[in-house]
């Protein structure tokens, strides 16, 4: 064979040439001093490049990036109001959003405008109250409950891969557990301040929530399990929703479960 060009030799060195062609090339390199020297020069340049590039590397801030990317999206239909917003302002925005959502069709310009407005608002709240989350679970946001002053925190889990499991542990006696169907791509637990959250894979757990708990489930999510103290309350598979826990009240958009200590004390 004639002398191979540098590109082919480089491809051989990079493992891009296989089989008979590779064997023929190697045989030529062993027998041709000129080509062998060329291959050695390329290998040397490759090693020098690898060594030099290490100099400019810096460690990525992985945990920060993880929190930023995985906790970025806020469910759009059930906004949480940050503490930096005054209650009257929060109430007026809530009314505005609720009214518009009631009249605006999904995908309509009005709805998109409302969503954009909300996203801008949550961004500004987040930047003013940005705090480290030692558990690395979603992005916590202090909130005002509808009653006005009760502090609330939340943790979300992306619902990208089809299914999520939401588990609540040690819910306060007679506290309300509400499951709400929402638009969006993340399932969330919102509960009283002091709740501890953990997340592993597609499972999100909340421990010791004081007071009411609100679980938000994206309507489009295929597989969902919501449980309390190891007992499944609700299971969704595709379009089928199986209610296994004691229901106190149910509407098309939410289910309120009776918590431990109530008259129906948990499912069998």
């Amino acid at each position, binding site marked *: 064979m004639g002398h191979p060009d540098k*590109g082919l030799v*480089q*491809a051989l060195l*990079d493992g891009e040439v296989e089989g008979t062609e590779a064997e023929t090339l190697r045989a030529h390199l062993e027998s041709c001093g000129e080509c062998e020297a060329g291959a050695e020069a390329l290998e*040397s340049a490759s090693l020098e490049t690898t060594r*030099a590039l290490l100099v*400019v590397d810096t460690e990525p801030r*992985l945990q920060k990036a993880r929190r930023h990317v995985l906790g970025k999206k806020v469910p759009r239909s059930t906004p949480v109001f940050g503490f930096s917003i005054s209650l009257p302002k929060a109430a007026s925005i809530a009314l505005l959003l609720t009214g518009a959502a009631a009249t605006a069709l999904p995908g309509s310009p009005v709805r998109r405008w409302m969503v954009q407005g909300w996203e801008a608002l949550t961004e500004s709240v987040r930047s003013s109250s940005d705090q480290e989350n030692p558990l690395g679970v979603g992005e916590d946001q202090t909130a005002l409950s509808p009653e006005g002053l009760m502090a609330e925190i939340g943790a979300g889990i992306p619902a*990208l891969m089809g299914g999520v499991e939401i588990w609540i542990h040690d819910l306060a006696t007679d506290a309300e557990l509400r499951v709400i169907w929402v638009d969006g791509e993340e399932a969330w637990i919102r509960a009283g301040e002091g709740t501890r959250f953990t997340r592993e*894979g597609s499972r999100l757990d909340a421990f010791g929530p004081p007071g009411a708990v609100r679980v938000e489930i994206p309507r489009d999510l295929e597989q969902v399990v919501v449980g309390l103290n190891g007992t499944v309350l609700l299971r969704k598979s595709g379009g089928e929703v199986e209610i296994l826990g004691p229901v106190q009240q149910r509407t098309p958009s939410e289910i309120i479960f009776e918590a431990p200590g109530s008259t129906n004390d948990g499912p069998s």
Partner: protein
Amino acid sequence: MNFEALFDTVYPSLFRYCNRLTGDPDQAEDLAQEAFFRLLDRGAEGTDAGLRSWLFSVATNLVRDRARTRETRRRILSGFPPPEDETGPEGDLARAEEIQRVRKALEVLSQRDREMLLLRQEGFSYREIAEVADVSHRSVGTILARALQRFAAELSTEESENGTSR
């Protein structure tokens, strides 16, 4: 692989690639995260290798866009004097010089050759590199051989000019 596992696997490599390409860790962080946000918007459907390649392709395009913006800004600001260099302790200075030397050698390469060389360093196949750089598969080896040798030669030149010791 779910989205979180994909993030954990690909983010460090994508950040390193963007940092090498831009020379700015803060900007690299923004770019790498933006690529993942776009994946979230698009939906993480596809093979792991396909998603990884897609993320690098998006990040590469973002770097190109920002480079254009930076060039425009540079032209606008060309009438103003540059800020004075900040120098730290001696160790920092030596490291800064070393980084500067490598960055200058990278700058000698064309944007496309630089991207291809850095994609190779992240372990991409010639087929994947060809797709991201929009060149023919058969020309990848030739371009890489030339880029590697030019980069190494420029490093040697810089080293002899600055008297840098390894």
